């Protein structure tokens, strides 16, 4: 084991070479500035090209898009009118009955409680409008996803292409393709709805491919021998066997659609919860945004439990707890109730009482801000000086009397180099890999991430991409980096990477610690679970207001908002990984006399390394997906570029910035999950 670590592998040699190259480029950059900052003269009008390429296509497809808009809006309008017409007591009764039939008593109680809470908060009508959006978006996504998945199953040669497309659909920021959708489908909810379909289709496709592929060959054979035609074989043998997996796809698609319907509100034209959240964000009312965010969380948890409950029932083939006849009677009763209430003219909706209760939260928040301002200013300064400035400007950029108490004299530079070399030598005694890592850290701390030579960045990212994904990943990485360079977005891109990197470091330190603690204590785990659920389903906008009040506009607040959203994966996966370590190994090391500390660091965490790696991957993806939202609190990175493009209705500019963000996410995903493919993208983990 020790021998292995001390002898450099080929990977170590590669990284050592890259380190030497980076140091040389950093030094050379002092005399040849074009080596370190992306040359400003090398710009190409990429976004204009994108416009020139895409706008004619949009223009051509516009009549088609425009003619489907009324159809979509008519369906949406009908569903919406129906949902808003039904008095809430009847609707709650009906949904509870369906929940009981499909998933059992526990989910029914959950349904009753959460729906009553929605009524109590005072957002019933808006919640029904949001539900109408989901009810159009989900079936569309499911049908499309199933179709594409079945096609990929029939024609395996298409699969790599389809999977690449799915990756792009899941990582491309929706704000960036809103303008094209507006051009195609006109102003109104249809454009936003289709944005949510783009995001919600991929999980259905993935699950369809997995489900259809996992049907045992014997079943197909016996069906074929029984004389089934190809169509029958597909619909009567394959699909029923794959149904549980397809229903998992339905569950994930529903969650994805719900998380995205907020986007509809950016365009407007629909009085839904997303609009409430956006208006509250605009007026900086935390109570109102929290209340409406809570409604989304309740809807999400309910839809999640119901769809995953249906998936589980179909797997277990249990008898439903309520007979079909009783269900019909119950539904008739609900209809009767609805008619009765309508005739009597009772809405039974509570007034704005609860909402004004939520408004008190704002006053408390203000008091809290006044009371805690010095403490939070201290925290902000500590992280800004300790982590953000060094990562952004580097030691060389931030060495001023005001920050470090010294100026950058040759003596200071020499001292820095000496300390760095000392640390590298010290680390080399542990392993070559540690030495190289220390070297990179020292270099990064010197130049800062945005100031890191672009040539070295290109070499490092290229090498990492080549090693994990071969030529096509290298091509993807190079396309992202070079497009960023020539469109003058190199610095914003590095700012984005830097913001995500700092957020991931914090998430991993904090979330990892919480995950480790939760793995030891069932009570903490039970406390964290609903918090995690809420953090992940709460619309991301809601995090912004309290963070703003405590930490002011700027990168730091953006960082806090990103951390709040991206901290969930490390907590979940680290806990899950530690809890599923094989008990016999743990027992064996206990008997060998391992202390709890040794047990954690030398036995459990190494064994859970797959889960830890997956946590890292998911944290990075969550952080990148939060960039565009975080731009609302004032950042200067790619997310902001997407907004600027949206406000100027410049489709090309948004598409270019979006493509760079998608590239960052895709390359990071591939490089980080090299060892093992993660399970399909899930918003909420399955509960038992």
């Amino acid at each position, binding site marked *: 084991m020790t021998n292995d670590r001390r002898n450099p592998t080929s990977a170590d040699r590669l990284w050592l070479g890259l380190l030497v190259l980076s140091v040389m480029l950093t030094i050379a950059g002092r005399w040849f500035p074009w080596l370190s900052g992306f040359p400003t003269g090398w710009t190409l009008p990429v976004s204009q090209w994108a416009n020139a390429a895409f706008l004619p296509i949009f223009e051509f497809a516009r009549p088609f898009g425009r003619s489907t808009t009324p159809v979509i809006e008519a369906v949406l309008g009908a569903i919406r009118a129906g949902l808003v017409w039904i008095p809430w007591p009847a609707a709650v009764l009906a949904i509870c009955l369906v929940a009981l039939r499909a998933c059992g008593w526990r989910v029914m109680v959950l349904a009753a409680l959460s729906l009553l809470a929605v009524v109590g908060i005072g957002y019933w009508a808006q919640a029904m409008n949001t539900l109408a959006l989901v009810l159009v978006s989900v079936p569309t996504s499911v049908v499309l996803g199933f179709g594409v998945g079945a096609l990929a199953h029939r024609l395996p040669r298409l699969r790599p292409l389809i999977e690449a497309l799915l990756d792009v659909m899941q990582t491309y920021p929706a704000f960036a393709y809103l303008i094209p959708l507006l051009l195609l489908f006109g102003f109104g909810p249809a454009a936003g709805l289709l944005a949510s379909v783009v995001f919600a289709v991929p999980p259905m496709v993935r699950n369809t491919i997995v489900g259809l592929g996992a049907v045992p060959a014997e079943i197909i054979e016996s069906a074929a021998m029984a004389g089934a035609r190809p169509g029958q074989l597909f619909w009567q043998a394959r699909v029923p066997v794959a149904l549980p997996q397809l229903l998992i796809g339905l569950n994930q698609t529903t969650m994805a659609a719900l998380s995205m319907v907020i986007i509809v509100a950016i365009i407007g034209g629909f009085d839904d919860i997303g*609009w409430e959240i956006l208006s509250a964000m605009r007026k900086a009312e935390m109570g109102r945004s929290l209340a409406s965010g809570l409604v989304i969380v309740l809807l999400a948890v309910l839809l999640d439990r119901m769809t995953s409950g249906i998936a589980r029932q179909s797997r277990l083939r249990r008898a439903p707890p309520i007979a079909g006849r009783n269900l019909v009677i119950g539904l008739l009763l609900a209809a009767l109730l609805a008619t009765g209430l309508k005739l009597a003219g009772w809405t039974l909706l509570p007034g704005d009482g609860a909402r004004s209760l939520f408004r008190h939260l704002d006053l408390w928040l203000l008091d809290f801000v006044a009371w805690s301002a010095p403490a939070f200013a201290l925290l*902000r300064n500590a992280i800004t000086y300790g982590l953000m400035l060094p990562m952004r400007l580097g030691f060389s950029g931030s060495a001023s009397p005001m920050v470090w108490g010294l100026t950058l004299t040759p003596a200071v530079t020499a001292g820095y180099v000496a300390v760095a070399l000392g640390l590298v030598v010290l680390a080399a005694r542990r392993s070559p890999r540690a030495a190289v890592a220390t070297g990179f850290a020292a270099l990064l701390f010197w130049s800062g991430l945005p100031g890191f030579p672009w040539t070295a960045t290109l070499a490092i990212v290229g090498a990492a991409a080549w090693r994990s994904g071969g030529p096509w990943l290298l091509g993807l990485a190079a396309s992202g980096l070079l497009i960023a360079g020539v469109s003058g977005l190199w610095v914003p891109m590095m700012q984005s990477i830097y913001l995500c990197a700092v957020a991931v470091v914090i998430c991993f330190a904090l979330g990892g610690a919480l995950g480790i603690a939760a793995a030891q204590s069932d009570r903490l785990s039970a406390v964290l679970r609903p918090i995690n659920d809420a953090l992940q389903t709460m619309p991301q906008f809601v995090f912004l207001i309290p963070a703003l009040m405590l930490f002011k506009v700027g990168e730091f607040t953006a960082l806090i908002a990103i951390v709040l959203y991206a901290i969930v994966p490390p907590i979940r996966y680290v806990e899950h990984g530690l809890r599923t370590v094989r008990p016999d190994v743990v027992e064996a090391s206990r008997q060998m006399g391992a202390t709890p500390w040794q047990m954690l660091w030398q036995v459990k965490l190494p064994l859970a390394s797959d889960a830890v790696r997956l946590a890292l991957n998911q944290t990075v993806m969550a952080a990148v997906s939060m960039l565009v939202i975080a731009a609302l609190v004032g950042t200067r990175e790619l997310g902001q570029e997407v*907004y600027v493009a949206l406000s100027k209705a410049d489709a090309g500019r948004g598409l270019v910035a979006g493509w760079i963000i998608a590239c960052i996410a895709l390359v990071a995903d591939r490089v980080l999950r090299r060892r093992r493919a993660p399970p399909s993208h899930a918003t909420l983990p399955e509960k038992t």
Partner: protein
Amino acid sequence: MTRTLALGTTMLVALSTLSAAVAADLGAANEPIRLAMLEWSGAQISSQLAGKVLEKAGYKVEYVTAGNYPHFTGLADGDISASVEVWLNNVGEVFPKVLAEGKIEDIGTLGLTTNEGWIYPKFMEDLCPALPSWEALKDPACVGLLATPDTLPNGRFLDYPADWGSRAATIIADNSLPLTAVPSGSEGAMIAELRAAASAKTPLVMMFWAPHFILAEVDVGWIAMPPCTEDTNEHCIKAPDVDKVVWSGFAEKWPAAYEILKAFRVTTEDQQKMMLALDNQSGTLESVTDAWVAENEAIWKPWIDAGVN
């Protein structure tokens, strides 16, 4: 008996001809006029008032919640019929384009008395006695209070969101003030920060505009600006115009409504009163605008009369 009947008939005939004449002027009165409901409370009030006046004239009105920038696309296509509170200092790039193409029509001012400039929470006058003069921002002691790690050694100036354009940075440069303009990302971010600053007594100088509901809640001062170096929008802040904008087909489809909207005005005082009521929850958007319509028939009746005849 016959006489009364005859009289009745004549009256009926007269009435029906009258209503026929009106209907012709109303245009497509059975097709709803779709008014934009934008994100901020001022615009929502203006749009509700316009809608209620149009309803009094016999129109059907639908309110379409819409984002400020995207809604110009809707106006140009006729998906939205009219938008009554368009701040011409913040229209993005679609507006000038579709206006030039003749897809939308600017039908004149809404009548608001507006203001735009640099503001600070009132307590800062104790910390920087030279306020409200802009000279206070040259005083190192005052600038030091505004400095943050991001802007050191300069003071921090909270600017409009990046997508609204940054005139403040230009003006800071024109007067070589020791300030760094930091883009705020969104309106909500600006309000949150102003509230927090007033509550925690942390110094702040920012770009802002009036009328705005937050000004009823937080006591602010307006900085007396330095003289402009150039008389252009970039170098000089002036009170912005707020106009009403309709889809190009509006006048033809609803001729009377077009005239009514042209005459439609909202005063700053009225709007601020309603915004305050909304903000402290003494009324809903429905109730405050209903109350205005009930109390101000003398104001809106002439608009309808002039429009319909």
